[in-house]
């Protein structure tokens, strides 16, 4: 009988009742290519399945921007001196990153159930790769904003160096809530209906078609409502985009940005904590 030596005998896997804690993040790093491959699969499949493929990534935001700008013009919503199309697109694009990320991530585990019950990998990869797909869409959709800026001959100032910071803030908020909702959707299928409702609600309380100036400078809105309004991390993200790209007045003061950072990090922390907690049961209950 042949009795060989293992090639990878330094690798040792221990399986225990409560999962193994320490090596988790190391393992995600080891499986990082899988994030890329799952993301690549989703983009590729959409491109093959739909007639206009990647054009959807442009068409959806364009239509939203057009409709919102028309409404804004119709109801004379104050743009505080900016071009309406620029104001609306700088609000729509990050919002779409957040909302589609949330939507895709929350359904990602359920729609990849066949993978979860048949093969092992750190489950966190599934919602994360769903969000990366939305990031790809977002980067394509940014071309719209670039086109509009060229049209209006608007060049960003030095503040543009802060743009990545706001993008990271958006990604952390999306990932945190997306991961949390994905785990909740596996455990309680009701969240399938809760998520679209949450997104719809968020759509109305985020400064997409209007400027936060209308909220912050309004005398009719009490202070505690303004505080709750600022808890929405997308307020800081959207106003940050407008400020760093369009040289808008910076409406979301740094305290608001700091507050949003805390909210985003807490979301990411709670999301990961809850996900890790229920992850070991996924294959049993999905």
């Amino acid at each position, binding site marked *: *009988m042949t009795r060989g030596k293992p*090639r990878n005998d330094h690798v040792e*896997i221990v399986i225990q009742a*409560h999962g193994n804690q320490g090596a988790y993040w190391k393992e995600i790093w080891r499986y990082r290519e899988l994030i890329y491959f*799952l993301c690549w699969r989703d983009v590729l499949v959409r491109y093959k399945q739909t007639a206009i493929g990647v054009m959807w990534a442009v068409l959806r935001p364009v239509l939203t921007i057009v409709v919102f700008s028309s409404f804004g013009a119709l109801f004379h919503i104050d743009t505080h001196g900016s071009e309406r199309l620029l104001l609306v697109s700088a609000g729509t694009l990050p919002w779409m990153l957040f909302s589609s990320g949330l939507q895709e991530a929350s359904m990602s585990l359920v729609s990849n159930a066949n993978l979860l019950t048949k*093969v092992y990998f750190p489950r966190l990869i599934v919602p994360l790769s769903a969000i990366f797909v939305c990031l790809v869409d977002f980067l394509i959709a940014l071309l719209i904003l670039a086109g509009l800026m060229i049209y209006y001959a608007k060049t960003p100032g030095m503040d543009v160096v802060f743009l990545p910071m706001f993008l990271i803030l958006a990604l952390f908020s999306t990932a945190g809530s997306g991961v949390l909702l994905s785990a909740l959707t596996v455990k*309680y299928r009701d969240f399938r209906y809760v998520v679209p409702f949450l997104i719809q609600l968020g759509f109305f309380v985020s400064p997409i078609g209007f400027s936060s100036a209308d909220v912050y400078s309004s005398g009719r809105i009490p202070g505690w409502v303004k505080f709750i309004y600022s808890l929405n991390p997308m307020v800081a993200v959207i106003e940050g985009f407008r400020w760093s790209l369009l040289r808008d007045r910076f409406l979301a003061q740094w305290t608001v940005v700091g507050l949003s950072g805390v909210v985003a990090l807490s979301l990411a922390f709670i999301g990961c904590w809850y996900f890790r907690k229920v992850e070991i049961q996924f294959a049993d209950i999905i």
Partner: protein
Amino acid sequence: MSSIAVRAEHLTKQYVLRRQQIGNYTALRDVLMDKAKSFFTNGLSKPARETLLALDDVSFSIPWGERVGIIGKNGAGKSTLLKILSRIVTPTAGRVTLKGRVASLLEVGTGFHPELTGRENIFLNGAVLGMSRDEIRNKFDDIVAFAEIERFLDTPVKRYSSGMYVRLAFSVVAHLEADILLVDEVLAVGDAAFQKKSLGRMREVGGEGRTVLFVSHNMDAVQRLCNRGILLAKGKQVATGTIDNVVRTYLEASDRSQAEYCVGTPEEAVPGYVQAIRIESDDGIASAEIPSCKPFAVNVRFQINQALEHFIVAAGIVTMMGQPVRTVWSKARPLELGQYKALFSFDDIYLACGMYKLVIGLSEYERSFHYVDDVASFEILDATDGSADARIVNYRSGLILNQCRVEIFPQ
């Protein structure tokens, strides 16, 4: 340096079966209702929870390079064991140590996407199974050659024949650089030639010093592939040893004298289900020992819970090695709610001596809703009363004893 590749210690997996629950996920409403109820009743009446021990204190260690077959009836815990070793489900108690890289093949083509081409799916499937991009690139040509799909590399796999699909999927796994390979009955698919090829490949893998764990119902494949065996029954480890001994224990444990079998009520709501199976000799007496070349009958009692339009009941005879011998079915007909009995008379074909299993299926419009295998079995005994044409009556002359007309002419 120890030479143990897989060490399992007191492995236990308990499932909680919730009563009256269709589907296996929880609705938030139920949780809230339960919480509310237990609040009002002070937690005195806990919701009814039944538990099932899918694995019960299983311990074993497998040295490097061994090829181990895990056998047992349906529900014995084979798949649960493999899923724990693959890290898909976590055990309720116990501990497993695996040395080296593990690859598990629980299904053919995990992660394959029908819209993607063969080429794209090789990369996707490889990544899902834990291969790096460079590794897949290096192995790419070998994978394609082994699967014999060169010409269809850029065709979406949804246009593949099922044989091509299986070949490609198996080929990716066969080229994994894993030290421990966990395989569920996937070799049962694909055509005979490819089955032979993949069995050969698996043996090679074992020969290269890798450790293989193989779960199957097909005793023939298990015996050809493995050198050691573990027998599970109802979650417990019953026998361990050389594969031939373990297979013999398994075959002998199948109860031979029993002729009436009760089938458990299915947990989920179904249009109908088999309640009992009875094997009768030609005089109508329940007997699981049928003399060769004598007719026998299978009596199936079943319950129908809703009116059906296109009902069919089918019975199959399968050898203990897992080879189907014959399948017969009733004419489609509508059925009202109620209890029924179906009588299958096997009086036209004589089977060789040996043990056989019965498979019973109920279906509506070709969709099977209850399927019973591994419950009932019977034995064809050597005819001794002289009535049969008692020439050669064993497996060696073939499974079917009926003779055809043979004439010899001068030429």
